[in-house]
């Protein structure tokens, strides 16, 4: 599945000028509020008509201003999970789930007979079927909304910050379902988010947006690693890791492309692959191998870039193993340690912060 987008749109004073292409299972539209992410997915869904441009899905045009093609919303086959669940209040959960299916049947398309049961099982909503949306929690409603979109048999599934309206516990409840949806349904997903951990966990391709423009587009580790660490607390490096084994004291050994790391138990079998976010604010730099330090993870590294200072902060980029790490340091520390490009050093990575974003890992990364 390949999604190619190239649209321009003027709405009030806001100008959207975005182009990207992706063939990943999950493509994240990533950026701060007001960067045009929601406008862009609404354009993909057909709810907003762009002034000009082209949208193609596997070579088929959904919109093409030059060729005067504008496939109406209901014929696009683009599912949409909104920030708020938007369940139909007058229908039961079962009827909400069946809505898209009934529409498909009216249009002469019929899904597999067991599709309904599979989606219900996948999302764990079988106990909710006879309830009304008003009686559901936010997390339950969002799961039903995901099921409803899936059962309409979309060719592309849009998710606009589906977790934004939920608290941390509900987010943790839904994320595994999202991962399973991505892994099992083979419906490509465009996932809108401003959360670095969510994007790292879910996305293959990341499209970073700001002020209505695409500022970066590529694999998650490249785009997230390219964020300005002095501006964002969540910026950092994305590492690929393989579980190497369990330690007797409950720690897990990981082999990463930056070197071996010890993290709190991730609950994954040896050999499982996962993705780590190592935030720049959680990386320290030492000019010599540190002694008497509580941190367990010390990686030999080489300074590659000293960024431009922002106030007192400086982003220092390091090469460790075959990976790139980012560290947010103070200007004074950089001067005291006399850090400069090419200089060997040691990166100290706090183990606890590693596990936060890594467990459980996306199942499609598991061999």
């Amino acid at each position: 599945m390949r999604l190619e987008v190239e649209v321009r749109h003027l709405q009030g004073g806001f100008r959207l000028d975005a182009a990207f292409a992706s063939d990943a299972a999950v493509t994240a539209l990533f950026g701060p509020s007001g960067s045009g992410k929601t406008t862009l997915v609404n354009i993909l869904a057909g709810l907003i008509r762009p002034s000009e441009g082209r949208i193609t899905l596997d070579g088929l045009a959904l919109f093409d201003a030059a060729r005067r093609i504008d496939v109406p919303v209901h014929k696009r086959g683009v599912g949409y999970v909104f920030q708020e669940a938007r369940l139909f209040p007058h229908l039961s959960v079962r009827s909400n789930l069946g809505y898209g299916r009934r529409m498909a049947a009216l249009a002469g398309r019929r899904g597999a007979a067991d599709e309904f049961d599979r989606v219900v099982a996948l999302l764990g909503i079988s106990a909710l079927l006879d309830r009304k949306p008003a009686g559901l929690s936010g997390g339950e409603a969002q799961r039903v909304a995901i099921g409803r979109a899936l059962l309409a048999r979309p060719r592309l599934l849009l998710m606009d910050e589906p977790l934004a309206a939920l608290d941390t516990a509900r987010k943790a409840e839904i994320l595994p379902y999202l991962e399973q949806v991505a892994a099992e349904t083979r419906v490509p997903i465009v996932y809108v988010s401003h959360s670095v951990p969510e994007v790292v966990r879910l996305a293959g391709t990341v499209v970073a947006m700001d002020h209505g423009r695409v500022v970066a587009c590529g694999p998650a580790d490249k785009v997230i690693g390219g964020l300005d660490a002095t501006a964002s607390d969540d910026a950092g490096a994305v590492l690929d890791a393989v579980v190497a084994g369990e330690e007797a004291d409950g720690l897990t050994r990981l082999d990463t492309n930056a070197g071996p790391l010890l993290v709190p138990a991730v609950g994954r079998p040896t050999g499982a692959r996962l993705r780590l976010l190592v935030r720049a604010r959680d990386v320290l730099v030492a000019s010599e191998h540190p002694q008497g330090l509580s941190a367990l993870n010390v990686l030999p590294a080489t300074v590659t870039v000293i960024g431009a200072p922002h106030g007192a902060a400086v982003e220092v980029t390091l090469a460790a193993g075959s990976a790139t790490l980012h560290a947010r340091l103070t200007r004074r520390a950089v001067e005291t340690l006399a850090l400069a490009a090419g200089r060997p050093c040691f990166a100290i990575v706090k183990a606890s912060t590693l596990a936060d974003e890594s467990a459980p890992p996306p199942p499609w990364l598991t061999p």
Partner: protein
Amino acid sequence: MTLDLTPEETTAIWLTLRVALVAVAASLPVAILVAWVLARCRFPGIVLFDAIVHLPLTLPPVVTGFLLLLVFGRRAPVGAFLAEHFGLVFSFRWTGAALAAAVMGFPLFVRAIRLSIEAVDRRLEDAASTLGAPRALVALTVTLPLILPGILAGGVLAFARAMGEFGATVTFVSNIPGETQTIASAIYTYTQVPGGDGPALRLTLISVVLSLGALVLSELLARRTRRAIGQTRP
């Protein structure tokens, strides 16, 4: 005073109910359509259209009745056409009373439906579109169920207005016992003759009971409907 109704009085009561019911039923689809246009469409002249829809509310009923006579009378253009091609005669018939009642209740009917259409969360309609529903089906399966309480409320208002209609009815189709004499015009007649106070009072009492019953019934129905469509408040 007893409630021993004379045959004339009973006839007037049943006729009133029939006229009001037919008026509401016949104007329902038109009211929904007009309310939809007023709530959703933007075109030049919409203010004038809105004003025309609300005209029966502000015009003296006698004027409305006279206008109906001018348009739907036996020899009037529309009236003659309908009589000739559809056999539908309004003048001095109970159907004319129903037409007058429908016209008088129409603004109230439209207003209630329009308010509920404006209160519908358009984002639900967008969601239905993304699930593959064409616009007509979105209206039928999402919007219509959600505005049911408004339709009910408007219907009851229009029904109550229809039962009480007097001025336009009398002007348009006169006051013929057994054909166009509703409760309201019967009461008027009784107050004009000596010894008519008794029947007038009886009909007044029945009128109060019917109106009150309609309002209570509509409130119960509205509550139940709101529950059924998952709304906690109106």
